[in-house]
Each structure stands twice: as C-alpha cells, then as structure tokens.
C-alpha cells in the first residue's frame, strides 16, 4: 500500500503544508526587504522584522471608522483565509495529491484569491474615505487586466498537462522537453509578470513607500489598524508566497517535492521550497532595484505585454506542436 494513500497522513501533510505557508510567508517578505536594502548599500531591517511587526500589531487595538459596516470587519479575515485555502490545493511540499487537492483546481484557486481581494476592495469602499475609493479603483484596474493573462496561462499549462489540478500538472511537467518548450517558457514569463502585478511589486506598484497617494495597495488598506491590519499584511504576504509557489512548483521548477510522507523527505521539501523562494526573491530584488514604478496608465501596457506573451504561449503550443 502506498503511503500516499493513507488518508490520515494526507490530512496531516495538508495541515503541515498550510502551516509552512503561514509561517514562511513573512520571512520571504523580510528577506526581499533586507536584500533590497543591501543592494542600495544600506543595512536594512532584519529578515525577521515582519514577524516583529505582526506581533506588535496583534497586541494593538483596532480603530474602526464610524461608517464602516460588517464587511469592513469581515474583510481581513476573508483576505487572510483565502491564501490558506489555496495552499490546500497546490503542490507546496508533496508530489502526490493531498486530502483537499481535488477540492478545487487552478482556476478555483485563482477565484479564491480573487475573492479575498474582492472583499478587501469592498472594505476599502466601505470606509467612505476618498483614498479607499481611489485605491480600490486602481487595484481593480490592475486586477482586471491581470485576470485574462492568468486564465490564458492556466489554459496553456492545462493543455500541456491534460488536467487543471495543480498536482497533476506538476507531475506531468517534470519532463524537460515539455518544460523548455517555448510555450511553457512564455507562459512562465507571463505568469511572473502577473505575479509582480498582483503582489504589488515594481514595476506595477512600490511596496516600500507608504504614501497613500502614490500607491495602489497602501491606499486600499489605509483604514485598517491593529489586528485587522496584521491579518491583512499577513494575508498579502501569504498571497505573494502562494503565487510564487504556483509559479515555482508548477511551472518553472516542478522538482524537489517530497515523493512520500517520510518526515525527512518532507523537511527536505520545505528546505528546497525555501531555497527556490530565495532564488525567486533574488530575481525580484534585482528587478526592483533596476526599474522604476510605471505610471498607472503604462501598467496597462505592461499587462498587455503579459497578455500577448500568454496568447503566444497558447498559440505556439497548439500550432507549434
């Protein structure tokens, strides 16, 4: 009997997977911040700083605007829970599908993440503040341009793998000839550009500045404080982590995952995942240090380019063979 078939193990592994996402997400955020500072010849904050921040925020009281409704109170929790749900569906640590793996596929995962963002948007509008509305507006602008690209990337990858379940795609794509096919490369580049957009990195948004006027993200979450803010920031970090995991574990490097439930394999998989994350973080730091933020209207071109690349990915697969 295969270890993977034992239901209890699968549930445990699923929980472990979610915990990994939960606990490691702020670390990646801290690492990126630190490395960016080093690039700029500063010392920068410690890589554990996001944890300290979360700890601080959880102990502070929260201030809620008078006109806010239950949506404002609910939104952070939904936003926090969404990446965790998606973490159940994607191959984070193991190559074989876990307990909840067939609950939803990549499209479902995309929708769940979208749900979190949607609630945050509603909360921003709910506050009645001008900055909230502006932030909501801009984030929708970016999101609606990014959605088609995501769809196309998922379609391409599913075409190749013959399935939309991330685990199965991961297993199928572990072959090098499929991996380095031009359509696959184009899809990976397109997805990377979308991740930069969705996570609010340069060149779409500047994650360092906290000015509400220049940002898409900061103005959206301007009214949150205390525990809600902690949940939102953690949720954002986890969303970024989850998207990167999809990129790395499904598209770019589908190796290094644990083939069974043996604990040393699983720990090894965690280490490999963190390693891949660090490489991705390095690339992101390079991009963030080399480019400036685009004007908001130019973001349309950026995502338009991603769209065309994704389109080419589909085309080159169907026509190129």
């Amino acid at each position: 009997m295969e270890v993977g078939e034992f239901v209890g193990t699968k549930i445990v592994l699923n929980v472990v997977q979610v915990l990994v996402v939960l606990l490691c997400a702020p670390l990646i955020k801290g690492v990126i911040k630190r490395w960016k500072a080093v690039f700029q010849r500063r010392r920068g904050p410690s890589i554990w700083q996001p944890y300290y921040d979360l700890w601080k925020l959880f102990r502070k009281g929260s201030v809620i605007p008078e006109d806010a409704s239950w949506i404002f109170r609910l939104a952070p929790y939904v936003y926090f829970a969404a990446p965790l749900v998606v973490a159940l569906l994607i191959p984070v640590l193991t190559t074989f599908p876990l307990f909840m793996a067939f609950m939803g596929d990549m499209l479902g995962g995309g929708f769940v993440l979208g749900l979190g963002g949607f609630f945050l948007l509603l909360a921003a509008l709910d506050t009645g503040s001008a900055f909230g509305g502006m932030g909501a507006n801009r984030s929708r602008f970016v999101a609606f341009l990014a959605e088609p690209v995501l769809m196309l990337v998922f379609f391409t990858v599913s075409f190749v793998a013959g399935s939309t379940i991330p685990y199965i795609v991961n297993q199928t794509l572990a072959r090098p000839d499929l991996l380095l096919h031009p359509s696959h490369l184009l899809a990976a580049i397109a997805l990377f550009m979308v991740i930069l957009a969705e996570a609010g990195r340069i060149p779409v948004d500047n994650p360092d500045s906290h000015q509400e006027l220049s940002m898409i993200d900061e103005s959206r979450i301007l009214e949150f404080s205390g525990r809600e803010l902690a949940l939102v920031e953690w949720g954002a970090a986890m969303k970024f982590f989850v998207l990167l995991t999809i990129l790395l574990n499904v598209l770019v490097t589908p190796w290094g995952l644990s083939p069974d439930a043996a604990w040393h394999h699983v720990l090894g998989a965690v280490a490999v995942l963190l390693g891949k994350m660090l490489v991705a973080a390095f690339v992101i730091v390079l991009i963030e240090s080399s480019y400036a933020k685009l004007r908001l209207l130019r973001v349309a071109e950026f995502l338009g380019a991603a769209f065309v690349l994704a389109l080419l990915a589909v085309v080159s697969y169907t026509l190129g063979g």
Partner: protein
Amino acid sequence: METGLPVRTLLHTLATLTLVTTFALIVARQLLACVEAYAVHSLLLALVAALIGYATGITHLYVLAGVTLAVKTVLIPLLFRWLIHGSVHEKRELQFYVGVPAGLLVCGGLVLLAFYATRPLAAALALPVRPLLEVGMAVFLIGVFVTASRREAVPQVVGLLCAENGVFLAALATAYGLPLLVEFGLFFDLVITVLVMGILVGRMHVLLSTTDTEKLQRLRG
C-alpha cells in the same frame, strides 16, 4: 543533424527569448532602448547560429556567429550611439503612429499570421527545429511593423535591422544558413546601409532639427 534533447530544448529556449526580445523592441519608448534591444536580439541570433553549427558540424556557422556578434552586437549599436550622441532626442520618448497597446495586439496577430503561414512550409520541409522558422518569420513581420509604426527615423532603421535578423533566423532554420560568401555580402551591405541611413538621419537632424519623419510631409501627390 544531432537533435538530442538538450540541443533541441536549448534552441527552443533561444527562439522564445528572441521573440520576447522583439516584443521588448515594440514596447521600447527610448531610442537607446531600441538599440539595446537590437543588440540583445543579435546576440541571441549569434548563439543560435553557434548552436546549430555545433549540432550539424557545419564549421562556417561558427564564423557566421562570430561575425554576427562583431557586426550586429557591437559595431552597429556603436554606430547608432555615435549617431545619436549629443542629439537632443536621445533621451526623449519616441512617438508612434500606432500606440504600444494596439501595437502589442497587432504584433500578437502578426505572430499568429507567421505561425499559420509557415505551417505548410515547415511540414513540407520536415524540419527538426520548427520553432526557429516560425519565430524567424514572426520577427521579420514585427520588424517591418515597427518600421511602419514609428515616427522617428532611428527606430525605423532599427525595425529594418530586426526584420533582417528574422530573415537570417529563418535561413538558419531551413537551410542552416546561406552560403558564406552571400552572408558576408549581406553583412557588408547591412553596414553600408546603416551608414548611409545614419548620415541621412544626421543631415535630417541638422537641416530640420528633428528626426521626426512626421515633419517630412512637403512632397504630396
């Protein structure tokens, strides 16, 4: 030809990167960015030539790769830099007849067209590295589009050069490059063309204090 997995996947990767670089040419809004995109483009081309030379054992392809590197990656971008050095338009943004988002969609369409048009050809020729031919034709069409959609004179020339790179790529894919003598002739012709165009652009800048070809509208009918 040796079509082992590493060679084939490497060729595919290079073909994809060439296509992506061509798109970088379309979205480039600075003069120098155009020239740099062309330099990277030619570098990838030289790598493809060297790789095919390695796979097929045709040694003159190494020579070709070397000359491509020397002429297109180094010499011609230097010529361009010397040409636009000191020009006031060096830092300014480019003007387009067709804006970037529309241009991207058009180029997506052109790539589709190229893929569709070369399908019967590639099938009939039974190529081991089909993506190269398709990408070559796509790059050619995109290069011609860039020439047609830019208002400034220098990006028009860069578009032509990129299109020529595309033809070169298609030639590599289908016939492992043209005969060496013809290739040298092509390089020579290319350098002279760039020189002549460069001189004309320089004169344009002196005479009209702009290289915006939109201003060249006096002759009609």
